[in-house]
């Protein structure tokens, strides 16, 4: 069996005696007999490191690892520079906890301050917190920031990732907040429907818009922001951080709060987590931000120092009056994102964003020739929706046989595709050829080399 208890049995005996106990049973007499577990746990015996590694490797091998991935929908297979893993594997970062003792946690605190700065830069906002569990929970936590006695209803566009809407709904079930999903039109937020909904609701608190949206389409965020503000509500944007290196920032679109999932910034897809949510807002709303915030100050000798600040907003002080119960942050994932952004720089990020977008456009053209027609006709980033003229399972199985993870089947038999800078022209030509050979369209054929 495995164990990480260093003290020998003899030492344990001595320690028990020194603490005044005759045995472990004697020590545990503080647990009433009627709740004691009087049998061994019904679990397998412990394993040596060699055995446990073998077992876990077996499990990992049961998963299919695709050579090329054309599926996104909230989890994107971008390139990760080698320096990222090297930095986040440092044991000090890995094994520290929330920096309660500033004097011996300057490294963590400074890295969070740098993360906050980079998120402010990307979003154009004034202040960012030290992060959330993921983009969806960050989105849900914007609602209590906007709801008050006079503003009670939250709105979200139907073009938002369905899972994000679901998390928002669950959070609103908790807080007894009314959440309204507003309809989409041709793959974009229906601005007219938004306008009439907000105009007739004097209690509208906020509207959430995803940019680019779930279908990959670019929304006219500035125009939507104007509609939202005209109704006296807050404009909240959920954004893809990589795209922000080339597209208008939330600040440029008039957002009051910007959130998103930091996964594209150096985090592996990892069957869904851990990722990190970011949140940034204006100075005016700073004290409504949930979560940890690091601030710069000086020490007793005037040296630069970093501390957790504005803590009186938080649960450990405000208890039931806090607007959120969030206690920790996803620090190691913030660090991942920071190192990624430092390594890529603004040029590198813009290049990754442009290449992802260009490849998605190339793929869409190819798929169109193969008979998979674009469903929407609007500007898009690195995801797009096509029709699927054949059974989607037939297509996806054929791709899987060649080590390709195809797009995600979504409503009405359509498919949501994604491309990143990692997908080569060769991979895409292969995908298009397989698709073409199934539909018999496009004059392309693909011969399996298996």
């Amino acid at each position, binding site marked *: 069996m495995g164990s990480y208890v260093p003290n020998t049995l003899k030492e344990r005996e001595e320690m028990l005696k020194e603490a005044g106990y005759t045995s472990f049973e004697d020590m545990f007499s503080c647990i009433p007999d009627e709740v004691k577990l009087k049998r061994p746990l019904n679990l397998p015996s412990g394993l040596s490191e060699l055995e446990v590694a073998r077992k876990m490797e077996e499990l990992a091998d049961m998963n299919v690892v695709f050579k090329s991935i054309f599926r996104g929908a909230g989890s994107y297979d971008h390139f990760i520079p080698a320096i990222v893993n090297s930095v986040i594997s440092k044991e000090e970062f890995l094994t520290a906890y929330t920096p309660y003792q500033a004097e011996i946690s300057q490294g963590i605190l400074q890295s969070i301050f740098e993360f906050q700065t980079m998120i402010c830069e990307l979003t154009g906002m004034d202040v960012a917190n030290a992060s959330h569990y993921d983009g969806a929970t960050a989105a849900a936590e914007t609602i209590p920031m906007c709801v008050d006695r006079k503003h009670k209803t939250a709105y979200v566009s139907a073009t938002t990732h369905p899972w994000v809407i679901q998390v928002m709904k669950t959070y609103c079930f908790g807080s007894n907040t009314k959440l309204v999903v507003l309809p989409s039109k041709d793959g974009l937020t229906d601005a007219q429907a938004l306008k009439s909904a907000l105009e007739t609701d004097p209690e509208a608190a906020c509207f959430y818009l995803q940019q680019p949206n779930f279908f990959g389409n670019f929304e006219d965020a500035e125009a939507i922001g104007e509609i939202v503000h005209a109704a006296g509500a807050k404009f909240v944007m959920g954004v893809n951080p990589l795209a922000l290196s080339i597209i208008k920032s939330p600040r440029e679109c008039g957002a009051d709060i910007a959130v998103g999932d930091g996964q594209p910034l150096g985090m592996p897809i990892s069957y869904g987590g851990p990722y990190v949510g970011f949140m940034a807002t204006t100075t005016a709303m700073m004290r409504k931000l949930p979560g940890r915030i690091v601030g710069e100050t000086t020490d007793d000798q005037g040296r630069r120092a970093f501390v957790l600040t504005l803590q009186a907003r938080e649960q450990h002080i405000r208890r039931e*009056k806090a607007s959120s119960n969030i206690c920790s942050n996803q620090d190691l994932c913030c660090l991942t994102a920071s190192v990624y952004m430092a390594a890529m720089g603004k040029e590198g990020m813009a290049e990754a964003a442009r290449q992802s977008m260009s490849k998605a456009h190339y793929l869409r053209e190819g798929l169109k020739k193969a008979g998979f027609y674009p469903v929407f006709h609007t500007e898009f980033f690195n995801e797009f929706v096509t029709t699927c003229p054949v059974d989607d399972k037939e297509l996806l199985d054929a791709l899987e046989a060649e080590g390709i993870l195809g797009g995600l089947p979504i409503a009405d038999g359509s498919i949501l595709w994604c491309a990143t800078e990692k997908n080569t022209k060769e991979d895409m030509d292969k995908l298009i050829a397989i698709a073409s050979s199934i539909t018999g369209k496009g004059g392309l054929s693909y011969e399996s080399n298996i």
Partner: protein
Amino acid sequence: MALYFMKSHEWLNELDDNTVTIGISDYAQNELGGLVFVNLPEPGDEVTVDEPFADVESVKAVSDIYSPVSGTVLEINEELLDAPETINDAPYDAWFIKVENVTAHADLMTEEEYNAYCETLAE
């Protein structure tokens, strides 16, 4: 000016125009330490006797501020939002809110009574 005090350390000042201002005492600011923020109500809000109408934040604590009267908030001291240290520096100048239409008062102490009361707390 004649100030009246609550046991929870708020002061009340009655002005000539039938309005009152409310703040916290020197004893209170001293106990709370360096204040870093104050949350105030909005003009037009109703305040109720013995109920919190604001809170003050220090680095590691947040404390409710109770109202010595019932009435309507006429004005708030916006200066405190930018400079909460004013409360530490000059607690009797740093009024939080001005209240009109006062309908009820809490049991209040005179300055002399309040000072004696603070003496008992120190023991």
